[in-house]
């Protein structure tokens, strides 16, 4: 049998146990332990990688500035590779071994749902970065989330379509969790939004050509616009094939492509694509009076300076999660999980990259519809669509 000194974490745990026995509360340690399990590798690394970079970057910055009220922040990040079983194991490890005070993480809805029971049982606040509605509906006492739901993205797209009198659409979705979950939400709210989905196609993760699916959409009479739900390289392929087939209809993408990288990959084909996205992507183009401008400009600059990569909405979710927790810790003046939880729930008027957050006992996300902006892609750059018209 493998000896238990095999784990480097053992010593850490032993120290924690000794301190706990001595009756030293975690405040006396002058540090707050924040845990995280993210999909840094694997199919969702497109989301998890910027999330990890963001957390590490900002925890460093907070510590350089003297921590939270003098308490240093210790960050423990594990890579679950997008595998829910691994996420659950790491969640257990964060609770049992690392004894964290709070958790910011969970890249996908699948990994988040796998971790929720662990943190609920251990009574540790958990701020997820994934988009799925089941995370916060029904409300779970210890679970919060920062990312806009895919339902909100659909509502935003459908409202824009209605405004342009485009009511019959075709839907093409990725079969991975993100694309499928948003597709389900779109189908669910279509009728109520006055949108008819005349045709549906899908593509698998890693598919490198979707012209057959798009050919079928092209041949469908009455379709006025095409909506694509998915993330990663799939939407870039869809966009390229869309132009290859010269489909004349407007193309809508989701917030799953909310990164400059999408424009680079789709190149000229991306021109004319419209999508809902957080204000973060157009930080420099927001009008000066926009209340969100300072926070998104600052985050975008910090991220790009540190990583030399373009900012994406997903790193922003991690920023929001971390900062909501940090604010809560300041108010709580404690690293006690229960007090942290109560303060997170009281978050009001927090200005994040995803929008204004107003949490309540019945709303553990706290984002309004205004969180999304409608963007067009023109000449390889984002352009803000005016809210009044199209």
């Amino acid at each position, binding site marked *: 049998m493998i000896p238990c000194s095999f784990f480097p974490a053992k010593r850490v745990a032993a120290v924690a146990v000794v301190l706990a026995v001595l009756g030293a509360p975690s405040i006396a340690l002058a540090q707050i332990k924040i845990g995280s399990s993210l999909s840094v590798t694997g199919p969702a690394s497109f989301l998890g990688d910027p999330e990890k970079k963001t957390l590490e970057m900002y925890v460093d910055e907070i510590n350089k500035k003297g921590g939270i009220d003098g308490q240093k922040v210790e960050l423990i990040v594990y890579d679950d590779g997008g595998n829910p079983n691994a996420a659950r194991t790491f969640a257990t490890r964060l609770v049992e071994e690392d004894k964290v005070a709070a958790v910011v993480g969970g890249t996908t809805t699948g990994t988040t749902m796998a971790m929720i029971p662990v943190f609920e049982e251990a009574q540790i606040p958990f701020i997820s970065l994934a988009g799925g509605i089941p995370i916060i509906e029904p409300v779970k006492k210890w679970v919060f989330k920062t990312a806009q739901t895919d339902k909100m993205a659909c509502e935003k797209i459908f409202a824009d379509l209605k405004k342009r009198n485009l009511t019959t659409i075709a839907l093409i979705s990725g079969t991975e969790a993100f694309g499928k979950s948003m597709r389900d939400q779109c189908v669910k709210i279509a009728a109520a939004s006055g949108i008819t989905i005349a045709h549906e196609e899908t593509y698998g993760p890693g598919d*490198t050509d979707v012209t057959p699916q798009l050919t079928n959409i092209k041949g469908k009479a009455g379709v006025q616009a095409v909506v694509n739900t998915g993330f990663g390289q799939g939407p870039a392929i869809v966009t390229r094939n869309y132009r290859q087939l010269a489909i004349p209809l407007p193309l809508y993408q989701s917030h799953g492509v909310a990164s400059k990288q999408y424009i680079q990959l789709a190149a000229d084909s991306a021109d004319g694509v419209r999508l809902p996205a957080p204000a973060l992507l157009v930080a420099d183009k927001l009008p000066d009076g926009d209340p969100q401008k300072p926070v998104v400009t600052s985050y975008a600059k910090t991220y790009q300076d540190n990583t030399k*990569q373009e900012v994406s909405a997903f790193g922003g979710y991690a920023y929001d999660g971390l900062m909501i927790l940090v604010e809560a810790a300041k108010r709580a003046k404690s690293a006690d999980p229960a007090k942290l939880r109560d303060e997170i729930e009281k978050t009001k008027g927090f200005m994040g990259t995803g929008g204004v957050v107003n949490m309540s006992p019945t709303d553990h996300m706290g984002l309004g519809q205004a969180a999304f902006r409608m963007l067009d892609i023109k000449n390889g750059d984002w352009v803000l669509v005016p809210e009044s018209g199209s």
Partner: protein
Amino acid sequence: MAELLQFAFSGLTVGAVYALVALGFTLIYNASDVINFAQGEFVMLGGLVTVFLLAAGLPLPVAALLAVVASTLVGLALYRFAIEPARGANAVTLIMITIGASIFLRGAAQVIFDKRYHSLPPLFGDTPIRFGGAAILPQSLVVLAGALVIVVLLWAFVDRTLFGKAVLATAANKLAARLVGIDTRLTVGFSFAISAAIGAIAGILVTPITLTSYNIGTLLALKGFAAAMLGGIGSAVGAVLGGLLLGLLEALSAGYLSSEFKDAVAFIVILAVLFVRPQGLLGRARVERV
């Protein structure tokens, strides 16, 4: 009709990629009886090394050439430091070594490069060629032409050169080849190098269409392996045929049946073919040695 043509274009483009990966499987299998599950990583390396050298300021042809050289060296290293020391081990052990190698290469790529998707500029622009109501990208024709050139060169090499004949002899019977004075270590190592080079060339050619990232290898290995088996393992023509067929199957079932079940349809057809021809389309029937 225009639909069918469009589906065929799509199928041939994707199929050419599978064909090149399957060809890599076949070469290594013939020389060493190893199924190399790191074959997809060569495709990844070819694309990513070119992308990063290009970004570093090298001209595209130089970057591409260096990428092929780099992958070839990795292929040789794989043989020299992982496969050769384990010679004589059973087939499953050797497969595990190549799976370990693919995990290692993927891990190295995410550290050396990054975890994002990348593209390369197409050779002849991205204005589609329209033909009979369907559209195909010039780069797709480049990929198909590249696959054809590689197959012809391989055939000429094996058929027309002495060293090529030595490789063939090693494939047919290693012991007999050694007895007639062929350095089988050299020929097997050479097969790994060529296989890696073909993978890298495939990676460079397809990246403008399919995009690339550190983790594209697994799926390519899976599809390439299936294509090689469909064609009949050990047959180079079979590998190419298997790859193109697999691509066409996926495109046609996505177009005519259901995009959700296109992979399922492709594998059901492969299973059906194997039930009728257990040695694949062009494979030789194996006789168990007692």
